[in-house]
């Protein structure tokens, strides 16, 4: 049922994700996040979404993690003097953890989706032409909205990073 390569990539991704979230050192956490994203890109390749795998590496590994590393070096995070957690925060954390575990358990026990095998024939995610057709016909309005969103984000970052008078 499970391919050995799939198991390897999946375990690698999960371990790197855990490392990214639990590491005390922020730079190490960013590096673990990078490896985790590479694993997810590998899974995209396994799903025949080659363009998305490439874009994931380009946008996340190339831009987002690099930005994280720049910010980490810029603001020089010292190890936090860990103050004790407040009780309400602990209770809320335990409740949220219980919800997540319940969701995962429900997925494991009842999440039997149909479509166990990919449909035969050429995978649709492979052809760039299909992306272009959808992006420029059905999803033309969202593409333009996303363009405006990027413009607004750019202006917002410029306004935020200006020195306060």
């Amino acid at each position, binding site marked *: *049922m499970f391919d050995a390569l*799939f198991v390897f*990539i999946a375990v690698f991704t*999960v371990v790197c*994700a855990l490392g*990214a*979230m*639990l590491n005390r050192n922020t730079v190490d*956490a960013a590096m673990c*996040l990078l490896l*985790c994203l590479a694993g*997810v890109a590998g*899974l*995209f390749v*396994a*799903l*025949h*979404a080659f363009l*998305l795998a490439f874009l*994931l590496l380009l*946008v*996340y590994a190339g*831009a*987002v993690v690099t930005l*994280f590393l720049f*910010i980490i070096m*810029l*603001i020089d995070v010292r190890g*936090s003097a*860990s*103050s004790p957690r407040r009780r309400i925060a602990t209770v809320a*954390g335990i409740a*949220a953890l219980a919800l*997540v575990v319940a*969701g995962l358990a429900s*997925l494991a026990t009842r*999440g039997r*989706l149909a*479509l*166990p*095998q*990919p*449909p035969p*024939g050429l*995978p*649709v*995610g492979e052809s760039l032409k299909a*992306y272009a057709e*959808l*992006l420029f016909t059905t999803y033309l309005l969202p593409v333009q909205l*996303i363009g405006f*969103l*990027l413009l607004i*984000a*750019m202006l*917002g*970052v410029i306004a*935020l*990073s200006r020195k*306060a008078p």
Partner: protein
Amino acid sequence: MITASLNAYIGLSAILFAIGFLGVLLRRNALVIFMGLELMLVAATLGLVAFSRYNAAMDGDVFVFFILTVAAAEVAVGLAIVVALFRRRGTIQVEELDSLKN
């Protein structure tokens, strides 16, 4: 050629999402909280791509496009806010950023 069932992909996506969520809950460094948010977004895209592949439909793949763009914009603005916060307050530990409370 890697073969795995749709359930495996969705389960992996859920596990990654849970890890990111736990990071957001447990960590108190604003940068690591941001990394947890990014991890949750990536987990969601993994689920979308898997559904798209197994249903032979393109819409999930195109949606991942938009998620990637929104994530990039979000991280740019969020990190700019973190830097501005650090400049003004000298810390990015979320427990110490409680000036709205009083």
